[in-house]
């Protein structure tokens, strides 16, 4: 009897072992499809370190005792502009009504743990993990990035051309397009560019006169490379970096050359009549983001703005750059809504990587305003989030969270994007501790 029971259990275990590879972490037999809220997500790491006082609290110069309050982010937030004592050149909003009316504002979110450093903040948002210590800036993060989760767990798996990461400047940021995690890594990473360099002076000097290869030349090249590579025992996977398909690589190369040689007309996020010298690095990054969106219609695109970090030494410029970055975000949303594929099928999320201190440092700018650092005090952990998208999918004009009761954290962005793009249930449950920002969705 015992022997029979043993054999029966063994048979059941064997059957389970055979079936197990087809059972997904969610417990379902097959990957989900069609459970997306929309097909495109744009994440703006609206950063450089922004205090809630100058953003959602609209205090303008009040906290310095140097002038009135007022809203300097009129494309994103409801509220009247400062009535006087302007230390920036005001730009007329590009949107007929602020983005907050087209989505949900998480007025007080938390950057809960770890140092409030720029790279730590970026890493927390993009990986869904806080880092308790300062990171090694020159290596890819330990935990998978949102790009890797998206590419690995979407069904069917997506090519790299569907995921993009554009950083305003280089520094450590190129390392955020994939992680060192053994189950993910570069095979699931995003395409990365840093527009100020990729399309800047160096790119123009070296590559603007480049001719792309004719398809027949490309075919001969690929044949010859295949032959040469077949005689060498190391493959492309032994070489660091993400890999595009040959077709996608050729298309991206053409895109870079087209932008460098002026074949693609470039429109900048500047109001009419504003001098081109008002363009900031943040706005150039937003310009490039639109070019990528327009050309490749990626499902997941992440950009950042970092110019506002000037707040360490120049509060007036911080306000001016905040005002301009807000215009850029409005401009980008306006462009998205004019695109035949992206319009009404895109959700945009904006979140600073961290805040700034409650107390200023000792540096005064030319207007006699004090500057602020970010040294992990409670104020620098107070951030906001804005999720905008189509009515019927995203709650419109909704505001969540207060200074007393924060709602949401920086590490919630990865699960929220997974929820939007329909692969949240496929994520290994032990990988992320953040939650979907459910309050944003109908």
């Amino acid at each position, binding site marked *: 009897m015992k022997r029979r029971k043993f054999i029966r259990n063994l048979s059941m275990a064997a059957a389970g072992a055979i079936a197990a590879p087809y059972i997904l972490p969610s417990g379902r037999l097959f990957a989900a499809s069609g459970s997306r809220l929309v097909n495109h997500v744009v994440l703006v790491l609206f950063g450089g370190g922004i205090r809630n006082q100058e953003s959602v609290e609209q205090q303008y110069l009040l906290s310095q005792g140097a002038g009135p309050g007022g809203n300097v982010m009129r494309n994103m937030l409801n509220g009247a502009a400062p009535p006087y004592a302007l230390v920036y050149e005001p730009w007329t909003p590009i949107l007929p009504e602020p983005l907050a009316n087209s989505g949900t504002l998480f007025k007080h979110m938390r950057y809960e743990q770890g140092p409030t450093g720029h790279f730590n903040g970026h890493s927390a948002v993009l990986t869904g993990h806080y880092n308790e210590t300062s990171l090694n800036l020159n290596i890819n993060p330990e935990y998978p990035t949102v790009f890797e989760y998206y590419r690995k767990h979407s069904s069917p798996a997506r090519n790299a051309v569907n995921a993009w990461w554009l950083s305003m400047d280089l520094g450590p940021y190129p390392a955020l*397009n994939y992680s060192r995690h053994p189950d993910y890594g570069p095979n699931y990473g995003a395409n990365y560019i840093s527009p100020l360099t990729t399309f800047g002076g160096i790119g123009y000097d070296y590559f603007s006169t480049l001719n792309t290869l004719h398809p027949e*030349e490309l075919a001969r090249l690929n044949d010859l490379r295949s032959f040469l590579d077949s005689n060498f025992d190391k493959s492309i996977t*032994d*070489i660091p970096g993400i890999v595009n398909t040959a077709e996608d690589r050729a298309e991206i190369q053409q895109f870079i050359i087209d932008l460098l040689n002026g074949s693609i007309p470039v429109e900048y996020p500047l109001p009419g009549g504003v001098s081109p010298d008002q363009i900031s690095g943040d706005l150039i990054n937003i310009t490039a983001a639109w070019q990528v969106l327009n050309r490749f219609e990626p499902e997941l695109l992440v950009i950042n703005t970092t110019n506002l970090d000037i707040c360490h030494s120049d509060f007036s410029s911080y306000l001016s750059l905040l005002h301009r970055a807000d215009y850029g975000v409005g401009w980008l949303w306006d462009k998205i809504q004019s695109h035949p594929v992206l319009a009404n099928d895109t959700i945009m999320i904006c979140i600073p990587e961290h805040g700034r201190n409650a107390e200023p440092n000792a540096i005064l700018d030319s207007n006699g305003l004090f500057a602020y650092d970010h040294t992990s005090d409670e104020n620098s952990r107070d951030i906001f989030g804005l999720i905008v998208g189509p009515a019927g999918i995203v709650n419109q004009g909704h505001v969540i969270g207060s200074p007393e009761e924060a709602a949401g954290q920086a590490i919630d962005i990865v699960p929220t994007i997974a929820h939007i793009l329909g692969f949240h249930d496929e994520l290994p449950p032990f990988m992320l501790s953040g939650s979907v920002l459910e309050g944003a969705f109908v």
Partner: protein
Amino acid sequence: MQVSKWIVGALAVTLFWSSCKKEITQEIIYDNIIYQIDTVPVYDSNLEKDRLKTPLQFISSVFSNLYFSSIPSSVLDNLVVYRLSVGDKSLVNELIINAMLQDPVVLANIPTDEEMRLDIDDFIFTTYLRFYLRYPTEYEKYELKNMIEENTDLDPVEIFRAFLLSNEYQFY
């Protein structure tokens, strides 16, 4: 007794001469210096290549292979920074290599299609040596020769491009 004295003497002289051999040094001059890589005149086999070139090494070796001179430091700095700005390294390598292969200075160092087809064996031999720092195997010679003979559109620039973009070229 007398004989053993002679033996000891002869042994001492032998030891003296053998311990004072003049050291002969050989100076090897390489014409394609690649930064941070110990230049190896010729590899016996590509199996010896197990280390990935750094971006700096890769770009400087491409330059020296195509221009027969060391890369100016300003050019190297610019290209290393540019390479950082694009995530797909294969793509950015293509940009860099294609740009160099358009330079008339480089084109002057590349055999013409006619020259290649006059002596394909020699072209293959020198190309392997130039880019892979090794001799081609018999199989490689046979296959590449076939490809060149069968495809009249395949010219030396395209072949050089393929060598520079191949996986083997990324290693040393």
